[in-house]
């Protein structure tokens, strides 16, 4: 069996705004639903300045930890949870998702980061607050907090720092 060479990535560029974000893309569930949680935060560059032209994608299991395999992310019907969503950052570099608390052991939100100036997509994980250190990936202790969301009154806060002292841990995946 041959192994084919991967197709390389390229930046999403500045002009994705008319093409990739869509109505209710960031609302995996309606924010008015009683069990809705908000996952929100900022995307920041190496100077700590907001990145207003980033695009985040969220992929997560339901609260029971099960992976959802249902269509409808682009045609939300307010009842079907698909586990996937997409949110562009605003002028102040902020993004927000309305979603459900993920299950799993340990639970985390899988996040893809795209932006103008970012030549390839990045992957990270936002673990829930209080996740024990020994359940986290084996990253240096001083960087662990960059992959753990903080709690707020309506859900979770997760900032993404593309570069700098508190740079978010981004992941690459082993292949066999």
């Amino acid at each position: 069996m041959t192994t084919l060479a991967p197709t390389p990535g390229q930046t999403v560029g500045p002009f994705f705004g008319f093409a990739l974000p869509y109505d209710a893309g960031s609302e995996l569930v309606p924010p008015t639903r009683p069990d809705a949680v908000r996952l929100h935060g900022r995307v920041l560059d190496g100077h700590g300045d907001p990145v207003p032209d980033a695009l985040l994608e969220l992929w997560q299991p339901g609260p029971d930890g099960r992976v959802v395999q249902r269509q409808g992310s682009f045609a939300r019907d307010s009842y079907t949870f698909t586990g996937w969503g997409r949110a562009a950052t605003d002028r102040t570099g902020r993004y927000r998702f309305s979603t459900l608390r993920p299950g799993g052991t340990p639970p985390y939100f899988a996040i893809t980061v795209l932006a103008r100036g970012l030549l390839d997509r990045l992957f990270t994980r936002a673990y829930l607050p209080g996740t024990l250190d020994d359940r986290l990936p084996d990253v240096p202790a001083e960087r662990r907090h960059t992959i753990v969301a903080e709690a707020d009154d309506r859900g979770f806060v997760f900032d993404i720092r593309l570069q700098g002292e508190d740079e978010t841990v981004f992941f690459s995946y082993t292949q066999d």
Partner: protein
Amino acid sequence: MDQAAISGEIEAIAEAYQSSGAVETDVRLDYPPYRSSILRHPTKAPHQVDPEGIELWAPVFGHQDVDPFEADLTIQHRGEPLGERMRVTGRVTDGDGRPVRHQLVEIWQANAGGRYIHQRDQHPAALDPNFTGMGRCLTDSDGFYRFTTIKPGPYPWRNHHNAWRPAHIHFSLFGSEFTQRLVTQMYFPGDPLFALDPIYQAITDRAARDRLVATYDHDLTQHEWSLGFRWDVVLTGSHRTPLEEDHAA
């Protein structure tokens, strides 16, 4: 900063890569000739993990999400868009050549004059009232996507003085796992702007860069109607289960 200075930086990086003897298959994140990347690339190496849980799965998209008409970018308005009509098609597979079936492919592009409909595009070329430049489709059971569109024009940007992007179509692809997510750009054969473009050249390996260039295919060209281009995509990433491996072997 003019093109000669940027080209000098591009060439210096290319020479260092060639003399290193290493083989890179990905685009570099840290590529200073692309000025916007300077403050937006991680400086630490990615942390390598085994994909687990949700990462071993991809979101599902279907006919509820995508209308088949969205694969034709030339019929979204009352009239025909300006430009060279063309079909772009290809196969999406994983690294072992297995098709990525029934999965979402999104594209977006400038019009024939090199202008995006995006409000931040200030290039003083005409908008085309008959062209939006956004399309979507699902791959078929053999992994093939098919779009009908027009050839986008090259366009200026502000990386440096007199900077122009080679003509390209932006592609967004999902695999059968989260880890295979790919956003990239497809180019056209023989573009004279290739050597000058710091985004394309951020893939330092010549063979890897070539993988982003479509092939003109006369068999896809239709009599008195449209030109045909073929571009295949390989999404790597880890394999889902040992079981599936066994089946494939």
